[in-house]
């Protein structure tokens, strides 16, 4: 028979937990980033200047924030192609409410709500309608851009208050505000993914959707939440961008989704689902940002830049994949 009465022994044993220890194996891409930084520091003295570095991170923050939401989509084996268009749409809408007429919070809340709605539609169409996220978000990519153009009549929405401009252009303790926003988003996203049921289910759905279903998880509900969150992240980025440009540009944010997806994948997120982290995504975004910056500083022709960027992104993922094997 089973030895059932022996539980006291177990209770005395404490289970160690290592959830705070960062496992370096999962962040090998950080060495790629460090390598690039060292190389650029040697090649061009302009790179290591604080001003330049701040600039890089500020630029990166836009796609890194989107990337956090996209990472969750990809972990569930999905994708979000609508981010760039949602950035533009939210920018236009938020800018429309950003004059001195309204308190700052109004424009932010309306902007976030528009992003959440776009994401909610993405999630509902794919989860409830059974349409692949690739298609659902492709539809949103076109539609959201169209709505942005309609609302703004194709022209930038200006007349915004200085307090709104502070979000993307201001500094606190000499550090650009977008960097704080990125860090805040990162902390929230990371906690959501690692320490809440929501996060566990995101990984479970991506790792084995069938297992999630038979474990009694409402998979559709959580998928809708994932896309809604991704929409909100795009909205954050959209507000920051509009503020930085001092205008809601209906043509802004083009190809942002591609940089966000690339950040996520370079950062170790698997398109096959079930794997991915927020710190990884940020490192991925930094790799792309540093690369962009370095190529500019080195006076590489913009045409060649594109080619190099494409090659380096693929190589980074290739190296990561090899190491994992």
């Amino acid at each position: 028979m089973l030895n059932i009465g022996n539980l006291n022994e177990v209770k005395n044993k404490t289970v160690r937990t290592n959830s705070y220890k960062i496992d370096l194996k999962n962040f090998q891409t950080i060495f790629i980033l460090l390598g690039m930084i060292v190389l650029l520091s040697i090649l061009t003295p302009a790179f290591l200047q604080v001003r330049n570095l701040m600039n890089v991170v500020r630029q990166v923050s836009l796609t890194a924030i989107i990337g956090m939401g996209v990472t969750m989509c990809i972990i569930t084996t999905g994708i979000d192609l609508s981010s760039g268009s949602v950035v533009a749409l939210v920018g236009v809408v938020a800018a429309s409410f950003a004059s001195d007429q309204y308190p700052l919070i109004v424009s932010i809340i309306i902007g976030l709500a528009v992003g959440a709605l776009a994401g909610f539609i993405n999630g509902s169409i794919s989860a409830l309608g059974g349409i692949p996220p690739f298609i659902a978000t492709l539809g949103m990519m076109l539609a959201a851009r169209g709505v942005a153009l309609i609302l703004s009549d194709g022209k930038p929405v200006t007349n915004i208050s200085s307090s709104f401009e502070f979000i993307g252009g201001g500094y606190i303790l000499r550090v650009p505000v977008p960097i704080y926003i990125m860090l805040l988003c990162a902390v929230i996203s990371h906690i959501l993914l690692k320490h809440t049921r929501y996060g566990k289910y995101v990984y479970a759905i991506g790792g084995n959707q069938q297992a999630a279903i038979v474990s009694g998880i409402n998979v559709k509900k959580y998928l809708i939440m994932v896309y809604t969150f991704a929409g909100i992240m795009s909205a954050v980025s959209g507000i920051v961008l509009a503020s930085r440009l001092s205008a809601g540009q209906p043509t802004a944010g083009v190809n942002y989704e591609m940089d966000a997806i690339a950040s996520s994948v370079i950062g170790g997120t698997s398109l096959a689902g079930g794997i991915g982290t927020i710190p990884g995504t940020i490192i991925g975004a930094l790799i792309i940002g540093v690369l962009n910056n370095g190529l500019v500083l080195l006076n590489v022709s913009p045409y060649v830049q594109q080619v190099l960027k494409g090659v380096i992104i693929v190589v980074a993922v290739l190296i990561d994949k090899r190491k994992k094997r």
Partner: protein
Amino acid sequence: MIKISKEFPGVRALNNVDFRVRKGTIHALMGENGAGKSTLMKILIGLYKADSGEIKFNGELVKFQSIQDALNAGISMIHQELSPVPYMTVAENIFLGREPRHKNSFWVNDREMERKTVELLKQLEISIDPREKMLNLSTAYMQMVEIAKAISYDSKLIIMDEPTSAITEKEVEHLFRIIKWLKSKGVAIIYISHKMDEIFKIADEITVLRDGELVDTVLSSQTSREKLIEMMVGRELKHLFPKEEAQIGDVILEIKNFSRGKKFKNVNIKVRKGEILGVAGLMGAGRTEVMESLFGIVPPDTGEVYINGKKVNIRSPQDAVKHKIGFLTEDRKFSGLYLPLSVKDNMSIVNINNYIKTGLINHKALEDDCNKLVEMLNIKTPGLDQIVNNLSGGNQQKVLIARWLLINADILILDEPTRGIDVGAKAEIHRLMSNLAKQGKAIIMISSELPEILGMSDRIVVMHEGRLTGELSRAEASQENIMKYATGMVS
């Protein structure tokens, strides 16, 4: 469960089935594949909805809308297809869907989850680290985790769908101890299995389903193997292994000194025309690996292949096909069929080049040949354009055999040709094998079912840990001496 009926498009899966399980008993549910066992259970746990009928649990009428409802009511299930989330830990897998949280917050309490897992595993005497990722576990351990998970719901009824399909004998005994312990606590178990030994060892009652209908519920002490088989099949099983004598000719294929890494070493095998060669051995003995090397999927490190006495060089499946070797893989859905494609496409995929005239496919000639094969193999399909996914397992297997007949393969390697198909279809595949042998084809059959090996083979070779340990003629072979070779007791 009373008068349960369920229809799927085109199929009547269950017809007025009554099924009841008593508290604190172990109730075996048996039937051929497609008899409706899994459907019945999926209705019970709220995964499917019945078209008609009702379910009473503990005397109360219940209507489960979702798995969550069934779990809350105290019914859990170990699913036949393992359902781990590979990149999550053992603890996360076990508590998936009901992670403990810190008081009044959304923050998952990993520490508590791991502590509970340790406690649970300890209680079940399973030694696995709760923080190990599922993908690092062996299949057997994954299965044990699934079992632990089902038990951890503290259910009053646990459904086990073929829980022993992936575990070794030692773990089976362990599982049986757990089952008996659960029974002593008053838990009811529904145990689905094809393995007679297990059923008789553990079940109190047995219910048999056939073609979506209830055949009978009997006490296991008052029945026998033969009776059960008869109930399941609805006919006597005289023709289970219709092996017919075939003219055995010259050696058509010989492999010499085949070795590949740690998988197998110095394997020598000969097959003659018209011969069915059985390859026996335990899981992981290297049988499939040898055949994969023969077929060029993973070429061997060393070794030679002779066909009709001539040395040939096979480095890829294309080479093997050129030499008229056909390979029916072990897992037809994974590496054999194109499930969303038609019967015709599945048959012709290897040989499409022979039906191309001036760059285009000659559909007429192709369809004529396919139709001949459908008739010859007695494939039950409404037409060549039927999607293969909609065929039964036995017919899918025939489509795959037809694929190799279309290239006129002389040597057929069949890896577990009847796994997962029901008894009736099995007999048909066996008849087909006999016929093919009669036509002078050489057949190499890997099988883990000893009765099949004994029933169908002219000659049997046995493998153990990558080596050929024995060779037996049809007359010499018996379950006992095959097992001796297969376990390495003699070599």
